[in-house]
Structures are given as C-alpha cells and as structure tokens.
C-alpha cells in the first residue's frame, strides 16, 4: 500500500517536472536568443549583446507596433474594466431570468471563439466604414469586458449589503454610495480585471489578425507576419522579450500596489 503511495508521488513529481520544462523552455529559449551576439541563434550562446534590441528600436514598423500595442491595451483595458464594472454593479443584487441572460451575455466573449468574432467584426466594419484603431479598440474592449465583470461581480457579491444600507441611511445618494463606498471596497476586483484585460489585449492575436491595417499593427501581429514572411530573424526574439518584459514589469507593479495574492484570489 505504501509502495503505491510512493508510486503516486513519483508520478505526480515527474509529470510536474516534464510539464514545467515543456511550458517554460520555449519562453526561456526566446529570451536567451534575444541576447545573441551573432546573426543567428546558436545554443549554448557564445556571448551576450544588446544589438537586437537596438535593431528593434531602429525598425520603424517594430517600434510603431510596440507603441500601438501599449496604447491599445491601456485604452481597451480601461474601457473594458469601466464597462465590466458597471455591468457587475448592476447585476450584483439582481435575480431572475433577465439577470441570468445579461450575465451570460457579459461573460460570453470569454468562451466565444475569437476568430469568429474577428471575422464578424471585420465584416461589420467593412460595411459601416470603421477606421482601424477605434475598430481594434472596440474589439479588444468586448474581449476584455468579461474579466472586469467577473472579478468585480465576485468582489461585490462578497460585500455585506448592510454597508450600503448604512451609507444610504446616513444620507448618501446612490451616486455617493457607489463612488465613496462600493467602488473602494471592490477596488481589488477592478484592478485585477484591468490587469487581465490589459494582458489579454497586449497578446491578442485572433481578432487583431483581421482588424489591423497597413501601418496600424499590434506587436503580436507584427511578430507573426515577420515569422511568416521573413523567417525567424533574431529581432523577433528581441520583440518577444520586450513583450515578456512589459508583462513582468506590470505584474511586479501591481504586486507592489495591492499584492499579487489578492489579484489571483479575486479571479
């Protein structure tokens, strides 16, 4: 019996080791390749250099894609979080079929194949003549909305309704109660939703694939078209490393502001 228990532990440990190697090695390889001093990637690396990062910022299309991705993710995450928060605060104390339907609608983009959403939005934008950036922004807003909605709904549901009643009995109107009482209390949920919406937008491929245009491209799509049409030059590794670095920086910032444990639990 104890032999079986040891066997179980060995299987779990081995599987975990294999899984972490398979998940993390491709990411580590990219970061190592980005610091390669040569024109091609050799493993193990023969030295360290910043030349591919210099090259990245020299290429106008790369620089532009990076800036556009940051702007897009900031705007889309903010808009998505505001909308998701509004939806969550509306639904938090409501029951009934209409509330269930609305909740399903606000969460649906989470499981809806984004490639189909991308095709559908491109078709709509072609018909109504939507410019590229607002089109991308609204697409990423729809994709990011469920994150803020879900985290704020979870935070708000955990609140004691007596708090809001106390606020109102002390003379606060609905707007004052919302801004001074409810919002500060659900703030970790808001921040967590914003973080996830930002990260999703910053790496998003399926909708951006259809909705980017000439000169208006996001970093992931720029990396994709380089890989597809110009082979794997190492400037791509530098671009990828910057993608990773920005996310690590953002997560570290949030950790300092509110603590990452609260963010993960707020999911």
């Amino acid at each position: 019996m104890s032999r079986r228990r040891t066997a179980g532990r060995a299987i779990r440990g081995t599987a975990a080791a294999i899984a972490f190697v398979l998940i993390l090695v491709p990411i580590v390889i990219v970061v190592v390749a980005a610091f390669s001093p040569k024109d091609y990637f050799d493993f193990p690396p023969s030295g360290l250099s910043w030349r591919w990062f210099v090259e990245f910022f020299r290429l106008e299309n790369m620089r532009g894609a990076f800036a556009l991705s940051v702007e897009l993710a900031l705007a889309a995450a903010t808009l998505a979080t505001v909308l998701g928060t509004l939806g969550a605060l509306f639904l938090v104390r409501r029951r009934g079929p209409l509330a269930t339907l609305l909740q399903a609608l606000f969460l649906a983009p989470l499981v809806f194949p984004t490639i189909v959403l991308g095709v559908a939005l491109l078709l709509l934008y072609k018909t109504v003549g939507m410019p590229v950036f607002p089109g991308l922004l609204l697409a990423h807003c729809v994709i990011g909305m469920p994150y803020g909605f879900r985290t704020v709904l979870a935070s708000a549901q955990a609140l004691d309704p007596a708090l809001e009643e106390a606020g109102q009995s002390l003379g606060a109107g609905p707007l004052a109660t919302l801004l001074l009482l409810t919002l500060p209390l659900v703030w970790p949920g808001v921040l967590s939703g914003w973080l996830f919406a930002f990260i999703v937008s910053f790496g998003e491929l399926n909708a951006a694939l259809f909705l980017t245009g000439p000169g208006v491209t996001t970093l992931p799509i720029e990396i994709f078209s380089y890989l597809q049409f110009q082979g794997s030059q190492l400037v791509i590794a530098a671009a990828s490393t910057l993608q990773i670095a920005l996310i690590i920086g953002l997560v570290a910032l949030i950790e300092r502001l509110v603590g990452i444990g609260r963010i993960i639990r707020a999911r």
Partner: protein
Amino acid sequence: MKTRWALVLAAPPLAIALAFFVVPVAYLFWVSLHQPSQSELYGAALTLGNYAGILGDSFYLEITRRTLGVAAAILALCLLVGYPVAYFVALLPARRRMLVTLLLLFPLMVSNVVRAYGWIALLARRGVINAGLEGLGVIAAPLELLYTTPAVVVGLMTILLPYMVISIANTLAALDRRYEEAAQALGAGPLRTFLHVTLPLSMPGVASGTLLVLLLTLSAYVTITLLGGPRSKLLVSMIYDGVTAFQWPHAAALSFILLALALVLTGVILGVLRPARVQGTGR
C-alpha cells in the same frame, strides 16, 4: 428613481455587447445565408448553398476530421499530463501553491505568437533540438520536426496546458480531504480511493479545463499556421483563407460550422463528464 439610476449602470456595457458582439455575429450568420458576389460583400439571393457546398465537399470533411483528430490528441495529452501535475500542485502547502500557480499563470500572459516562436526555435531545421542531436552525433541530417501535425499538437498542448492544470488544481485544492480519509478508513487503498472518490469529485475542474483547452484549440490560427505550415491546415485556417480571398459568404458559413462543432463538442464533454453531478452537493 432607483430603477432609472440602475439602468444608467447597465446601459453602456449592454450597448457595447449588443453593437460589437451580438449584432456582428448575427450579421455574419445573415451573410452566410447569401450567395457570393463578385462586386459586393455578398449577393442578394438567399441560399443554403454555402453550407451545402462545404458539407458535401470531401476536402472539408478531411479538414474537419484532421481538426477533430488534433483537438482529441491535444485534449488527451493535456489530461494525461495535466491531471497528475494538478494533483501535485493541489497537495502543496498554501504559500508554495500560490508561487507555483503564479508560475503557471505567467506563460498564459505571454502572447501565443511568442510561445510558438519558442517552439520554432526548438524544432526548426537549424533549431536547438536538431543542432543538439547533430552535435551529439545521434543524427547525420536534420530531422523535419517543424511544419508537421505533431508539431502543432505538442506546441499547442504545452501552450494550453496551464489552463487544464489550474482548472483541475483549483477543484482538487478545494476538495474536502475527509472524503478521502473516510474511504481509506473503510479499507480502500490509495488507488481505489483515487478512482472512486478523488477522480469523480474533481470532474468540475476536469470539465472546465477540457472545455477551455478545446475552445482555444479550435481558434488557435496563429499557432497552427506557424507550427503546422501549409500542409497541416485546420478548419480555422480555412476561415482565414476564405476571408483573405474575399469569399465572405463562404468564410461566414465556415465560421458557423466551427461554432456548431464547438457547441456539439461542448455538449458531448458535459454529457460524458457530467460535472453538475458533483456541483451543488456541498463540499
């Protein structure tokens, strides 16, 4: 006053969800029911011909079969590797579990195109694996690892594995250990306890992980294109090709075939795993 105030909250998200999610998808469906047109986005006449054309074409049946095969292989591998890993994570003490969960979440934050690029660097003709094997003298000429269906399966499986692990680990960690203790006190060995108590109780996590991995597999165009190349195209690649060829009604019909496939597979998975049996029975 109270309802009017509340409607101000609901109106903006509802408007965006309707205008940029419900309406475009409905419009796409409407277009899928029209004849193709040379000059317009779609023709005037209503038809089911786009669907009939795809469903009656052996080429698309082969693509669909390949899509199902790749999805099944990815799901099987994710479950086989993911379940023991989730068990490993769930048994860790709370603080270490948090760190390991963070380590699993981090790759999900990195764009899939970057993670696919990592696999290209490993699998390419002059990639790390071929260079390593040649250096060791195991092989004389580089192996063709990239642009194959197994490359798609392995790459996509590792990209999506954290979703499976986190879903199952969350369920396992929340599981009441007294059920397992009760089974063992009644004389069941570790294997029997696992098969008859732990595994059935973890089905909600297995179901949500399986559904996430499946749905993300079906629309993973970029990963499939980069690792599979032109010979390993799946349904989602056909949608993209249809759009770039401006065959709008055709691409629209393919989109709804993909959606229908996702819906049917979701039904099958929920029917087989029956997570609702466990949920709501208190834990």
